[in-house]
């Protein structure tokens, strides 16, 4: 790469076997116009300190592995560029609100369990054998959920959500956006199964519409809209359950 400048990168480091708490370490990294923040970290790992730990895979904003805090803002490090921060410096930390596993890698277990709990797959009314063909739908039916299916599980929205930071019992933006994605799918009949999750205190009602999740989402999922539309749906669900004997409205 055609190097023309240097930038200071401050990284929050934490090695559980030796450190009692995380601390910052500063590195000077040369960069060119096209050097991403992720490449800056790779430079540190390859040339300055091989013990630096961080996740990445695709380098093209689709795998969702490389999310970190850059100067306090959740971002994908592969789609942010060092030049954007020059002549200032960068402070890189692991995604906020999630436990630090090691250096810039966070513990994703909580989210993965939550994701599994919403049954993130189509539950058809009747299962079909593969040779009976696919379940079809119209473009208009697809339009109802498409935006929510764009989620790449990068967890930037969890790092943006103070309610999740204050109480990790909250199901959180992406899990609720994906729950809404399947509930809005014309091929799916799992809504009744998923509604108790929506209605719970840890479901949509833990959200106070800070709205930062939608601001930082790199895929335009707008999880805040999924959560808050489900407040209306949850209220109606409660109302109809109250009005009709269980099962009568299904």
């Amino acid at each position: 790469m055609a190097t023309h400048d240097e930038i200071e990168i401050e990284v929050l480091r934490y090695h559980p076997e030796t450190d009692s708490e995380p601390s910052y370490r500063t590195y000077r990294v040369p960069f060119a116009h096209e050097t991403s923040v992720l490449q800056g970290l790779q430079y540190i790992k390859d040339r300055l300190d091989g013990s630096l730990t961080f996740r990445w895979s695709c380098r093209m904003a689709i795998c969702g592995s490389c999310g970190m805090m850059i100067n306090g803002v959740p971002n994908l490090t592969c789609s942010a560029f060092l030049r954007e921060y020059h002549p200032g410096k960068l402070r890189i930390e692991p995604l906020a609100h999630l436990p630090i596993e090691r250096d810039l890698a966070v513990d994703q277990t909580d989210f993965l369990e939550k994701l599994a709990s919403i049954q993130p797959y189509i539950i058809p009314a009747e299962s079909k054998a593969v040779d009976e063909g696919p379940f079809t739908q119209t473009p208009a039916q697809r339009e109802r959920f498409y935006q929510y299916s764009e989620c790449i599980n990068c967890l930037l929205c969890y790092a943006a959500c103070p309610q999740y930071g204050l109480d990790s019992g909250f199901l959180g933006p992406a899990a609720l956006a994906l729950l809404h994605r399947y509930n809005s799918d014309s091929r799916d009949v799992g809504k009744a199964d998923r509604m108790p999750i929506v209605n719970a205190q840890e479901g949509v009602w833990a959200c106070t519409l800070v709205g930062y999740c939608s601001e930082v989402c790199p895929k335009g999922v707008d999880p805040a809209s999924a959560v808050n539309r489900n407040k209306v749906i949850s209220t109606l669900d409660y109302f109809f359950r109250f009005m009709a004997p269980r099962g009568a409205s299904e």
Partner: protein
Amino acid sequence: MAVRRPYVRPMAGWWRRNPFYIFYMLREATSVFVALYALQLLYGLYTLAVGEAAFDAWLVSLRHPLFLVFHGVALAAALLHAFTWFNVAPKAMPVLYLGSHRVADRTLVWAQYLIFAVISVAILGVVLGG
């Protein structure tokens, strides 16, 4: 065997960490002024029930400079409250379709201002005309 000791960072002072959070707290704080204004208006209604003298005394007390300042602040808070609510309302309502076209969030935000303006003019008409 690697040591696992996940480190949970403290949340104290979280709302000062990001301008977005500060604005969120400001938005939430506006509700305090809206509530105080409503209480004050309720008190006015109460004096109306008590009698003319009490109501007049309430009207006079409203001219106190401190009350004027409070009303200025309450108005600013109510406007910010409305502005932020109008901005997020499209996220809370079902998606609207016109034919097969999805109505954009921006259009919904502007529609609220339009409705707001129409109602305000109508109320002003009733007040000034009546």
